[in-house]
């Protein structure tokens, strides 16, 4: 469970992006975060995903106060608890599909288990097994986003954080990607998506509006 208590984020004395946000996200929720540009949606997601630190308040993750965690501890959380999917896919162009998905496994604390088998299992689920050794540059947008989802899933995280995952895709491909997220949520994963797209938000169970650094759930 994710609990944000009075979370604030200031970049300078005069620039407050998030202002005393209280938010609780239960396990298995399917949430869309919406709001105008500059509202603080990505900053909120960065704080949830331990990419950024809050300047005030407490962040409780599964009962642990992670607000004061150091870089190493946050990196471990990013590796084990969260899976990230970003708008421009976030893939390394010189690597193959297999190598891109393998990245989180390189930094996993517990390196037991067969990496190849795990990756093949995920690619089978995402219908990309035949592309396993292809360079990611040779894939379509939809396929690349599926590779990104595969990478996000490889360490079996509890929470998937997606920042405008369909932003670079056409409608049909975007729907395919959203279907994958829905399926993941049905399997019990918490899925949090930042989006401007109403159609994407409609797929989710809960919509959180962020306006001027404050949150309003609907």
């Amino acid at each position: 469970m994710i609990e944000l208590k009075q979370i604030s984020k200031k970049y300078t004395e005069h620039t407050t992006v998030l202002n005393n946000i209280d938010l609780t996200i239960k396990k298995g929720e399917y949430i869309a975060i919406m709001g105008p540009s500059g509202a603080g949606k990505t900053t909120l997601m960065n704080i949830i995903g331990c990419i950024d630190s809050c300047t005030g308040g407490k962040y409780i993750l599964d009962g642990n106060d992670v607000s004061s965690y150091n870089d190493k501890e946050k990196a471990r959380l990013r590796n084990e608890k969260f899976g990230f999917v970003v708008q421009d896919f976030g893939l390394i162009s010189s690597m193959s599909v297999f190598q891109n998905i393998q990245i989180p496994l390189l930094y996993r604390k517990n390196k037991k288990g067969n990496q190849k088998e795990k990756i093949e299992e995920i690619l089978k689920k995402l219908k990309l097994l035949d592309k396993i050794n292809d360079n990611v540059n040779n894939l379509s947008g939809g396929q690349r986003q599926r590779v990104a989802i595969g990478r996000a899933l490889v360490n079996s995280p509890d929470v998937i954080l997606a920042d405008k995952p369909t932003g670079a895709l056409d409608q049909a491909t975007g729907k395919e990607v959203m279907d994958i997220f829905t399926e993941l949520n049905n399997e019990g994963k918490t899925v949090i998506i930042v989006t401007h797209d109403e159609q994407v938000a409609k797929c989710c169970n809960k919509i959180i509006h962020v306006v001027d650094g404050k949150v309003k759930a609907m």
Partner: protein
Amino acid sequence: MTYLKNLIRLIKKRKCQYMLFFLQMIVVFLMIQYTLNLLVDDRLFHQKLNSLNQNKISTYFATQDNDSNEMPECSFGEYAEFKKEINKECNNTAFSFSVSDLLLKTNEIPKRFLEFEESHNRYYQVTYISENFLKFYRLKVEQGREFSRENYNETSKKYISVILGSAFQKYFQVGNVIDKQYKIVGILEKKSSYLDIQLNSKIVSLDKQIILPMIYQAKEWGGCYVNHLMFSTEDKSSVDRIKRIIEKYDFKDYNIQKAETQINILKNDFYTELSFMIVLFFTCFSLCLFSIISMLLHLIEEQKTEFGIYMLCGATKMDMCFTIAVPIVVLSIIASFPSMVLCNSIFGCVLQIICMLLIITIILAFPLQYWLKKSISELKKERK
């Protein structure tokens, strides 16, 4: 293993930049090696200069006029008399030396000791010395003994006594006889050398030299003693008397000069060369460092998207620091090998290693600081 593969992939992807870095580091380390050698030479040079000022007694040397090509004529008998008269005037401090070559037939000496070869005859460099030479330059024999008084003054013995430089000790021992003629009585300490302030003002190493008593050269050419004559005295009138002795033996165009003046000229020349080389070194070194650090910063900028993705997947900033630093450290160590090979002492190698670690620290400090200031959220933004 996968981590190593990723590292290799990163290097391959930017092989031109890393190759340029590698070549620059080779140049930097060779420059450091050269400068360290100069500084070691400086230390040696000072030691030798100090030996010339021992006991604060003034040292003088005989020098022939620059435009004179006359070899001083002198018979063997006159050589002995001349030597005796000179030493009487300067309290037996006079000495001399002469560099020549010696024909040897033995096959036991490796080619690297060869001075030259002519018509299948092998010639090796020999230094003829008189009494006081070893004492004056504070040269010591590590094995065996120095020449005795008899060795310096008599030639009637069955064997000619020789002292060898330390490089010979792999091949000969004290007591061995070379060419059935030359008996080894001593082997000098390692790194024995002297400063020839007259001719070329260089430190002359004796490690590969064969040393004989001057009397064997005097048999052919008695005037050899005056050619590199040096003596010490505080009595200026004895200098005048020595000049008159030289004139008496009709050694034309020889003057007596105080070593101090020459030493000061040598010092100035040496320091001018040293200063110039050090300035040149620092200029080249600074330019190389600037270029290397700029290249590293550029590499980090190029790779920051990739690093951002790694950090999103659970890598820490320190992991990325290792990814930046490891190729640099490995390539630097490999680049230092040519200069290590040129090191001729353990001390030099240790200094070289310390310099290498210092340089690696300097070149990594600024780029890593730059990298550590970046946050993942910044990297995410910059990707867009």
